[in-house]
């Protein structure tokens, strides 16, 4: 799960990670008021107006503006940014509508660093990555100048050791800003580690981490992703979620306990199990690539889905306007084929089945499942294998498209 920069900074503050002063704003008036407050508090007329969307690259897309003329200029910038369709390299061409702003004090920095944390799944440690190339996309740095990224791995049983933080501090050349800066960096890393573990993050990025004239270090940006598996111990995550940033269909699926990811193709898929669901997408693409047929979604109904969940899942596929055909692919283990069959029939009867449907059932209670489908009176093509099913749905979509 992703959150906004201002939410991330509020969490940082809880752990003692230094951040600039700032206030979120949902309207132009709120933005102006926030800017006024900042000018009064800091004695400086420089404020920054920052679009709050989950995608990165906001500055390049025109979503971050420095207002040197205090509240009046900040208001003008807020008018421009709020409501704009912000396009960055991460949003796709349609962009993301800006509905929230963060108004922050402007700071004069002498250097920009990068500091990031992830779970390194291959080494089974939390990794800190630091670079002097702050403000740039870290993927770009990793590709072109990997030697500029310094990494330390933290042993989970003892946590971050001070020497590891010092290694990065000296590696980044922070001594040239004074030994106080080195000490501040070590404290900041320790705060970030505590934040990462206690908040169950899967990623934390501070880009840029600013070194100020005074030698202070400040997190100018905050990107936090949470480990969805840990939601049971973070009741506040529900409030932090911004539904405007999520795909509405994926939200609807998540609420029903289904794993759903929207894709660009035209064949809706209903499958049990994540691996089989991915493999089903792959085989549809394999069979249909040359004739313009591709999967429209990833949908894993899981192992223990109820008939209601299956009905819901099938309804969601039926309602999608881009779906020109549906492939149901089930290898029943715990999931019983008759439960799937009943769910599919119930949804198809309620909403009507206007596109070709191919069903491949295998595993537990397969005979019963096939019987329910064949007696339903629905126009269903039965498939014997995944390959057979993929070929049948591709053919059906192609001939349907020719009509």
């Amino acid at each position, binding site marked *: 799960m992703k959150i906004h920069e201002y939410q991330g900074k509020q969490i940082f503050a809880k752990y003692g990670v230094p951040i600039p002063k700032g206030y979120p704003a949902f309207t132009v008036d709120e933005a102006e008021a926030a800017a006024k407050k900042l000018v009064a508090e800091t004695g400086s007329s420089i404020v920054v107006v920052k679009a709050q969307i989950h995608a990165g690259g906001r500055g390049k897309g025109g979503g971050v503006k420095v207002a040197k003329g205090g509240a009046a200029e900040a208001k003008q910038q807020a008018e421009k940014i709020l409501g704009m369709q912000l396009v960055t390299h991460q949003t796709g061409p349609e962009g993301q509508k800006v509905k929230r702003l963060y108004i922050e004090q402007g700071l004069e920095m002498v250097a920009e660093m990068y500091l990031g944390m992830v779970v390194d799944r291959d080494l089974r440690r939390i990794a800190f990555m630091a670079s002097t190339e702050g403000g740039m996309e870290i993927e770009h740095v990793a590709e072109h100048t990997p030697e500029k990224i310094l990494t330390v791995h933290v042993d989970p049983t003892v946590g971050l050791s001070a020497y590891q933080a010092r290694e990065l501090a000296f590696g980044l050349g922070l001594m040239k800003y004074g030994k106080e800066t080195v000490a501040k960096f070590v404290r900041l890393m320790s705060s970030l580690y505590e934040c990462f573990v206690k908040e*169950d993050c899967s990623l934390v990025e501070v880009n840029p981490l600013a070194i100020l004239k005074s030698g202070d270090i400040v997190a100018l940006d905050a990107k936090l992703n949470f*480990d969805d598996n*840990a939601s*049971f*111990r973070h009741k506040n995550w529900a409030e932090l979620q911004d539904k405007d940033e999520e795909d509405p269909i994926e939200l609807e699926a998540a609420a029903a306990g289904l794993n759903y990811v929207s*894709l660009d193709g035209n064949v809706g898929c209903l499958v049990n199990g994540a*691996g089989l669901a991915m493999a089903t997408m792959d085989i549809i693409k*394999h069979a249909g690539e040359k004739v313009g047929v591709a999967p429209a979604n990833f949908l894993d109904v899981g*192992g223990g889905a109820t008939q209601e969940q299956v009905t819901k899942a099938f309804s969601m596929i039926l309602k999608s306007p881009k779906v020109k055909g549906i492939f149901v692919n089930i290898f029943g283990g715990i999931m019983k084929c008759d439960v799937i069959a009943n769910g599919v029939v119930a949804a198809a009867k309620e909403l009507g089945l206007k596109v070709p449907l191919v069903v491949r059932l295998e*595993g537990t209670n397969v005979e019963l499942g096939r019987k329910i489908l064949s007696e339903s009176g629905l126009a269903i093509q039965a498939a014997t294998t995944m390959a057979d099913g993929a070929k049948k749905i591709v053919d059906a979509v192609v001939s349907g498209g020719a009509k």
Partner: protein
Amino acid sequence: MSILVGKNTKLLVQGITGGAGSFHAKQMIEYGTQVVGGVTPTRGGEKFEGKVPVFDTVDQATKATGANASVIFVPPPGAADAILEAFDAGLELVICITEGIPSVDMLGVRRVLEAMQAEARAKGSKSIPRLVGPNCPGVITPDECKIGIMPGHIHKKGNIGVVSRSGTLTYEAVGQLTALGIGQSTCVGIGGDPVSGMDFVDVLELFQADPDTHGVIMIGEIGGGAEERGAAFIKEKMTKPVAAFIAGTTAPPGKRMGHAGAIISGGKGTAAAKIDALTAAGAKVAPTPSDMASTLKSMMK
């Protein structure tokens, strides 16, 4: 022979009185697995299904029953604790079915497990503690021992090992093998989480050493570097044929595809990179998931 589990496996079920635990405990007993005890704190002294004794702690259960393996159905908040409890009681094999354990919890478990394994190796012990999963279907040696949630009836005893990150895709491979009349030695689901126990390399090593395994189907998916490490092992150490399939060729980057571990992040963990590594290592990668068994068959003498 087979790997990991067999006729001599004596199993504890942690979380035996819960919904999933009790359902699958019954299925495992029906299949013929020796389920010698269950563990549910505060329910010690009860009998599951009138037969299987239930204990408060894994330590008590192990001492009373002589168990050597445990399967975990404990819900996510207590699952990491349950794994540690099982290893602390001296069990050499722990299979965790639970889906949804936070990564931070598993980092700690892994670290403790690695220390225990190093200690066992340093002592020259034959029994190295091993974790399978979490978020996996379990391990089955057909006709001998089924530990987990896989449908037993699709399996057939034989000489092909199956190792996979995905549950239903394992069933798919097993179904294809059985339909071709090819049986399985042992099928191991290593699970779909980013931080877990046994890796492809660990399982391939056991299959390579097992005289009754003549070939292997390895099923991977997007995310992480486990398939690439598996490929390196195949290249250097495997003499047995390996057919592979990697799910997620069509998965978009940055999206978690059901499994917590199935995500392409920062351009790493793509299906294409894994397929290339496996092909270069001499494994044969099935062009579609429908061809897993036939691809292996084409490699067998």
